[in-house]
């Protein structure tokens, strides 16, 4: 299983029946492929729909039906379309059960930076600040390091997305939960040692006595 699939499979385990879920671009998008059996979740796309379905077959595209990445999607039976104020009303009003986003850095306090690298890449925050500030549960899905550099750091050097502490960090090495006491190492990827996780993590981690294997469904 490659790193991205592992992360997506693990995140999918956090979803419960009836949840309203928003998936960011990149690894988070893959989560839709691994929803546990018997569970029905609703996907919101912040450009204005709940009940987004998969990419349409060629020739079946509707120019009025795209996802937040601008790609053609479909709408499942029971879907609902709405304007941007309603879409973010749902997000900011605390009605979104889970948002899964990519991350550039998460710090020891569980704060996320994921929207810009000053002087280098300034795409804009899009809906990220609203999602992290407003969702009931925020899951960061990202590779543990970038080009060998730890992404879980003592303090974010990149601009924060929100001062809200995220709820869970899922990487290709571990599952880490920010708590009042600090970052707790909750699960380890198959074949990964505690030493390796600590080595690849700049932030201090609280390491419980027993750490189960990552649940990947």
């Amino acid at each position, binding site marked *: 299983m490659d790193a991205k699939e592992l992360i997506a499979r693990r995140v999918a385990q956090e979803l419960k029946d009836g949840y309203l879920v928003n998936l960011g671009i990149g690894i988070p998008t893959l989560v839709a492929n691994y929803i546990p059996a018997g569970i029905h979740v609703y996907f919101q796309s912040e450009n204005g729909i709940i009940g987004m379905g998969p990419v349409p077959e060629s020739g079946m595209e509707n120019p009025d039906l795209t996802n937040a990445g601008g790609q053609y999607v479909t709408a499942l039976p029971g879907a609902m*379309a709405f304007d941007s104020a309603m879409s973010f009303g749902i997000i900011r009003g605390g009605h979104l059960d889970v948002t899964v986003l990519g991350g550039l850095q998460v710090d020891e306090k569980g704060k996320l930076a994921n929207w810009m690298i000053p002087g280098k890449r300034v795409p*804009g925050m899009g*809906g990220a600040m609203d999602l992290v500030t407003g969702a009931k549960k925020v899951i960061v899905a990202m590779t543990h390091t970038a080009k060998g550099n730890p992404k879980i750091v003592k303090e974010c050097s990149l601009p924060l997305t929100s001062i809200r502490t995220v709820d869970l960090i899922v990487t290709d090495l571990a599952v880490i939960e920010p708590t009042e006491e600090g970052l707790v190492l909750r699960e380890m990827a198959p074949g990964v040692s505690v030493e390796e996780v600590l080595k690849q993590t700049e932030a201090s981690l609280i390491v419980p006595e027993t750490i189960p294997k990552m649940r990947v469904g």
Partner: protein
Amino acid sequence: MKVLSSKDAIEMISEGSILMIGGFLGCGTPEKLIDELIASGKKSFTVIANDTAFPDKGIGKLIVSKLVNKVIASHIGTNPETQRQMIEGELEVELVPQGTLAERVRAGGVGLGGILTPTGVGTVVEDGKQKVVIADKEYLLELPLRADYALLKAKRADYYGNLEFSLTARNFNPLMAMAAENVIVEVEEIVPVGSIPPDSVHIPGVLVNYVVVGRCE
């Protein structure tokens, strides 16, 4: 409501005006009006929109054609030309969280003096903004946005100008229809009054100044 050709509609617009333009990565953007605006050679516009789409689509074309001095948007990452012009100092860009942008446009349309949001607190978004504390929680005071012209895309209009939007092409369009002095809407067809049931009209015709038929002119 008056039906105009796209040429006559763009004729009315003064150089340097503030334009609100509907659409999300080009979905729900009035392409015909955009093309006509480029053909007119008018420039120095301020554009308020969710994003600057792609270089060959929607608002992206205005950027590539260098008609825009300033952009207020949530995301510019899909258009490298926007980033280039910004870095070179040719284009001023104000980045606004998407939910805040929606609320600011809405506030401009419904007569609010501002709204309080937790989105952006403790991030670069708070720079220069008034903060208000309510029940020990900090909020940013975000101000309304208004425009001289709204350039919008709807699925169809009836002879009164009542508008119906379609799926994710709705996005910012209905919000902007309320926040501009002059509302110009590109539609795919005009239908008899009464064809759109009362509960399916998204924006009442009395708010629409001009309608341009985008497909079958």
